[in-house]
């Protein structure tokens, strides 16, 4: 299909270049910290990647070093401590995660999602054979449920909802779609903006 060049040109909605991390004066942008809801979502998305990649914990540490966050997260314990700001965790930490640390976790998430994108795509594709797709989903959800039971507080309603067969399936599918749309360098801004959404 040929789109006619005579069609009216759309009006740019914003002139801010993508990937810009500084304001017009050149000063570094103040990195906002994530809300409790944002921390929950970030940690659950990382948990989804661990369910997809059996060696996900080690892969996160490796990715952190590859991205130059070796000083921020020198070992897996430090990485785990940052993830424990998720209020749904069994052993959660109080307080706020620093903006720089949350950005680093989001970048790790995006790069790992990029690496696992073929698996994410396979889960989301409607052209896969239905029986095979159902088996893949079941395997993935079983792994994710095991990880959730192991690490999250089962008394929290958010955890109970995630483990609920009816409501949890839709939520898990949304998380997989989020990972697919937020994969790679281009997905960082989208995912970060989403995690900074207002609370409703």
């Amino acid at each position, binding site marked *: *299909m*040929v*789109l*006619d*060049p*005579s*069609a*009216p*040109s*759309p009006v*740019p*909605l*914003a*002139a*801010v*270049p*993508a*990937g*810009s991390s500084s304001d017009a004066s050149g000063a570094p942008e103040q990195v906002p910290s994530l809300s409790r809801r944002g921390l929950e979502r970030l940690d659950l998305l990382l948990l989804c990647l661990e369910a997809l990649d059996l060696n996900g914990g080690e892969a996160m540490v490796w990715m952190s070093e590859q991205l130059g966050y070796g000083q921020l997260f020198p070992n897996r314990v430090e990485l785990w401590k940052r993830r424990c700001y998720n209020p749904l965790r069994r052993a959660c930490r109080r307080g706020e995660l620093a903006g720089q640390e949350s950005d680093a976790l989001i970048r790790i998430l995006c790069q790992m999602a990029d690496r696992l*994108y*073929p698996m*994410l*795509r*396979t889960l*989301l*594709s*409607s*052209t896969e054979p239905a029986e095979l797709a159902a088996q893949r989903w079941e395997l993935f959800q079983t792994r994710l449920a095991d990880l959730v039971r192991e690490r999250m507080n089962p008394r929290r309603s958010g955890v109970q909802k995630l483990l609920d067969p009816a409501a949890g399936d839709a939520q898990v*599918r*949304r998380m997989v*779609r*989020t990972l*697919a*749309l*937020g*994969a*790679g*360098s*281009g*997905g960082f*801004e*989208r*995912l*970060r*903006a*989403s995690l*900074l*959404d*207002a*609370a*409703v």
Partner: protein
Amino acid sequence: MKQTLRYDQISCRLEVDGLPDVSAGHALDAVGILTGWRLQWAGRPELEGQREHLVALMEVVLPYARHLISGVGRRFGDADRPVSIAPKAEGSHRLSLRSSQGDQATLDLDLDDAELADLVRVLDQLRLDRRLALPLSVPSSRPLRGRDLIDRLPLHRRLAAPLGGLAALATAAGLVLLLPPPPAPTPSKGPAASSSASGSSSTPGIPSPPPSAPAP
């Protein structure tokens, strides 16, 4: 001199043709003047157009993906725009492409989540490619406000707070009506009224006491 930038994903391929703008000092492998683009889909018709159509595609697809990540599926692009996209069913998205050439009807493509993710990735690759020395004005991703996210909540949760408030108000009003009315205030009595009352001590039916005899 002609350059072709190619971005591949599993279900689609985006090719952008252009020339380096030598007058602006671009490198020979850069694209400073975009002359055309093609988007090839597996099993679907090929799309092609000019720079404004590519910008129109990015202006609707990237914000749509941004909102989907936040759980908000809403239409982007009006009916008078060359491109629009809207959620169709669970896991499906309708991309509509309109040509202003009279003999071509609107082309509707139903994409699943995987195909949408592929499209978003090729557009991201193009947007972030350093060889593209051409500003493509696409909206930056920003956090959504509460009113943008309100559609994400189901209707019963959205109505719970106002209906609960109304119910509480009605209950309180009913309880107030059940209370007994306060006694009517008695009229205040002035000094004249009190003196006349004391002067009329000879109330009918009650004999007044006889005057006492003087003491011997």
